[in-house]
């Protein structure tokens, strides 16, 4: 089983638009996993039916029983996250600041503090309009532990692929280089990096590629909006060559990408010219992953 993870470092480079287009091209050959759990958008293009939903619990939250509390202040004194302010004479847990370390409960002399498991979001198993399965999730606002929810989505997708005998899991990753991205990359067979020839695109690609390199994952790069800036494009090409990153495709700036999204379609269902490039690119990826095209 091959796990193809699409990431971008920088947001807004076209990662989700392209991943959704690949999903449409691959049809029922794949299982789709949307691991951008923080701002998941892929469902807007592929119409999942949300057939199966489960709450996801991870991490803890301190709760103080005010009827038992002696207001000694020990809990606030040991909290490194300033999460237990005193308000009108009562120690109150600030739910946003609490990291769930449990230290306060361990030092409370009257055992007034308990830790409860937090519901940080939901995950879903859906059939999408391409006739295949997608596993996706929604992180609760401000929630911690997005990396763990990402891991959950990937594991569920893997279980589906095993059960249905699918060879490919296509993963839409998240922006950045922090915990959700690290979680998206773990276990990946191949990484597709989506960038654009802007100073930010180049900068962010270099950083996220360092991470991919640390994981030792083979990768290729799509340069989207490739005609925005010739100088940065040349720098991007040189960087790919120097790092031995497969140069998968160059897709010119095309406002039809936005038009397609606005109409709830992927680019391969909307604009013939761009569709050709994206189709070639998907074939290229399959070749790199070692799958028959």
């Amino acid at each position: 089983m091959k796990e193809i993870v699409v990431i971008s470092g920088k947001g807004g480079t076209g990662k989700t638009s392209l991943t959704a287009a690949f999903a449409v091209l691959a049809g029922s050959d794949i299982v789709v996993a949307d691991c951008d759990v923080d701002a998941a958008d892929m469902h807007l293009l592929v119409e999942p039916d949300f057939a199966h939903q489960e709450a996801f619990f991870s991490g803890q939250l301190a709760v103080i029983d005010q009827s038992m509390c002696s207001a000694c202040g020990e809990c606030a004194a040991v909290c490194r996250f300033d999460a237990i302010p005193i308000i009108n004479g009562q120690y109150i847990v600030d739910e946003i600041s609490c990291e769930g370390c449990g230290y306060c409960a361990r030092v409370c002399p009257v055992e007034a503090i308990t830790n409860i498991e937090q519901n940080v979001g939901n995950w879903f198993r859906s059939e999408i309009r391409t006739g295949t399965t997608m596993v996706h999730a929604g992180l609760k606002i401000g929630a911690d532990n997005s990396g763990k929810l990402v891991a959950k989505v990937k594991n569920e997708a893997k279980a589906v692929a095993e059960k249905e005998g699918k060879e490919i899991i296509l993963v839409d990753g998240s922006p950045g280089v922090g915990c959700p991205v690290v979680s998206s990359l773990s276990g990946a067979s191949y990484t597709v990096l989506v960038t654009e020839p802007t100073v930010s695109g180049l900068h962010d690609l270099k950083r996220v590629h360092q991470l991919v390199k640390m994981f030792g994952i083979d990768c290729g790069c799509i340069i989207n909006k490739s005609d925005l800036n010739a100088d940065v494009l040349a720098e991007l090409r040189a960087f790919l060559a120097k790092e031995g990153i497969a140069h998968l495709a160059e897709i010119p700036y095309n406002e039809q990408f936005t038009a397609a999204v606005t109409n709830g379609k992927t680019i391969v269902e909307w604009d013939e010219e761009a569709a050709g490039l994206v189709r070639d690119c998907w074939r290229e990826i399959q070749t790199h992953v070692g799958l028959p095209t």
Partner: protein
Amino acid sequence: MKIAIASGKGGTGKTTLSTNLATFMAESANVVLTDLDVEEPNSGLFVQGELLHSEPKNKMIPHWEKENCSLCGNCQKVCNFNAILKMGDSIMVFPELCHGCYACCELCPTESLPMQPKQMGELKHFRAGDLDFVESRLMISEEQAVPLIKQTIDYVDANFPADTFKIFDAPPGTSCPVIEATKDADLVLLITEPTPFGLHDLKLAVETVRQLGKPFGVVLNRHGIGDDKVPAYCAAEGIPLVACIPNSRKIAETYAAGQLLYRDIPEVKAAVETVAAFIRDHNGGESS
């Protein structure tokens, strides 16, 4: 006054708005721009200046000293993050899992786990013309952005008086790093684009700032492409649509080259002026 510039979706123009707004406002007021997108900081590509100061940023993690350790295993028991493992006759610490709560260290009966600094990133402070600019970048392989964001805000608080306009370029999304970057703000500006993705993620961002109880407004980028649903949503929700930045290939190309927009593109200047006026209104109409 603290102004956070945030967005649910990435790539909608946070850095564009932050850098242009900060540089423009610095022409007539004291402004510090801070890049809190520590995973992928980009503001510095647009506001290069003279480096005034840099410092490593550390997080505190336990370090095992075996001499007095009785191998009681209490450290493993009290760690809620599985960052400490007792393996045979040694104690292993997994720094990337540690949240720095100090429980293992302070609850160790033999004081065998003193906390030690471990570098997680670097803060730099620049002066670019009239503008102060602070950025922090997380080292690759460090997973937790929140502690670095917190320390960066602390640096800005300690080094700039309260009457400075402090503009924070926040990370994308709606999870813990965004909360850390916006929870101290006096005003939040949410920037989005007129597409289904932009609208969907704007709604999440609105829910976030409402939960934090912050006053906020929306700036619409790439106005003219996509559809009209973002303005309709703002109107229905009573959210001020502060300004629009037009969709234009010229803007995309100027951004691509790492240049500021407002001096050359009148529509961007008009938008930035409107946003600055909105900020001043929220500051009680004072000049700083």
